[in-house]
């Protein structure tokens, strides 16, 4: 007989920890193939500092790249959708990351990666 689960008034807390091994990394790999300069990011944050969208909302390409690299892709599509593609980040990036294409490729990979 199946019994209903008991509600004790509390629930298991979602771990904040990034579980790298449990995360999927195919999306990051696909992006790295489509835009290899992904690998050149040094997380300096210049992109986020100059970002037109970042002026109005909490958006950081640096963070998006890191989350992608760690396989933390949940909610990432919504995050990249904030980008206006204006290209300021590309102009200031000290490592010549092709940031605009990166945004497009991340979006595409996330969309294609959906089950």
């Amino acid at each position, binding site marked *: 007989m199946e019994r209903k689960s008991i509600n004790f008034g509390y629930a298991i*807390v979602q771990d904040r920890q990034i579980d790298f091994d449990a995360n999927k990394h195919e999306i990051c790999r696909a992006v790295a193939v489509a835009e290899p300069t992904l690998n050149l990011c040094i997380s300096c944050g210049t992109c986020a500092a100059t970002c037109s969208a970042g002026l109005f909302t909490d958006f950081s390409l640096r963070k998006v790249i890191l989350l992608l690299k760690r396989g933390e892709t949940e909610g990432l599509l919504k995050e990249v959708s904030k980008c206006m593609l204006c290209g300021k980040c590309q102009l200031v990036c000290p490592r010549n990351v092709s940031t605009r294409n990166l945004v497009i490729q991340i979006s595409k990979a996330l969309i294609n990666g959906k089950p």
Partner: protein
Amino acid sequence: MRLEGKRLIWQDYQKEIADDHYFYARSCIRQTFFPGAEAIFMRILKEELGKDIHDEQHHTSCTGIGYHSDVVPFDTTMTVVARQFALMTEAGYENYAASCVTSFGLYTEILDTWNHFPETEAKIREYLFKATGREFNKPRNLAHASDIVYKLRHQIAAKAKYKLVDKKTGNPLKVVEHIGCHYSKMFPHKGIGGAEYPYVLSGMIEAWGGEVIDYPERRHCCGFGFRQYIVQANRGFSLSCSKKKFDSMEPYEPDMIITNCPGCPMFLDRWQYALSEMEGKTYGKNKQGIPVFTYEEVAGMIMGYDPWEIGLQVHQVPAEPLLDKIGIPYDPLQKFTGKQGQYLGIPESPSYLKFYADQQNTEVIK
């Protein structure tokens, strides 16, 4: 895993433990959670090993729960602890043995504070004297009760009837040891084996024939963490901590968990029930859970004490499969009878965790 590497570290973390004449300070909560544990400790020390141990009637809580929950100021805590020391001094003892890991940590912290700040010690002596008229000597030796059992582990093994070995196969049982955070994480040099690879329980397991399991989340807290548990809204965090440990130890198929802290066995035991009811998830073979014991209970078990006399019936995860495995006899009919042999009633059976009280037996008792 290289054992010799650990042994090198264990050599660095040894401490002096008094040989006899202990002033015993009980834990606030252990007597309710695992009522047999402290009794077994006294019994083994007194009856089996002939040690002198003073069971003080008038000591109070050390205030550890309140202190760690930020509701009792440190000065108050120190003064209360000073009173415990005064009781020890008055009873004519020098070796303080704490049953509770948090108390042990707190005593260590206070003694270390007084060592670095003598003026604080002087101030506390003054407080205590003003409040109670008592004076005290600091303990010559401070130990946690598990330190003492560790020290006497070979003597206990020599007198034991059973070993932590599978009766059928002769293989050592796989044992997870869990050390209370306050035992050595604050003062690594005050714990046997230090903070990273504590040896206090491992030493007992080795001496009693078991095999120690070292799993990735071994160092993780059980989840008790006073504040987490006391506030109901935070209880989920407490549960999640235990779950993290169970998930990590599960692949090693442990036969049992041994702990040395008041809170840990409580939570590692009861949360297995909560998890099973909330998520349907059970650990251990055949949905029987992983039984959790205090080191005193384990000592009592191998000494051949009656499982129901040492309180194993109050465990949520039933001990019976393990008792069967070791070959310790028990009377299933006696599990739910009181001290005078009266029938206490059978608790409702859990939905997922296996329950070892069949209808037939209970009918007989009634």
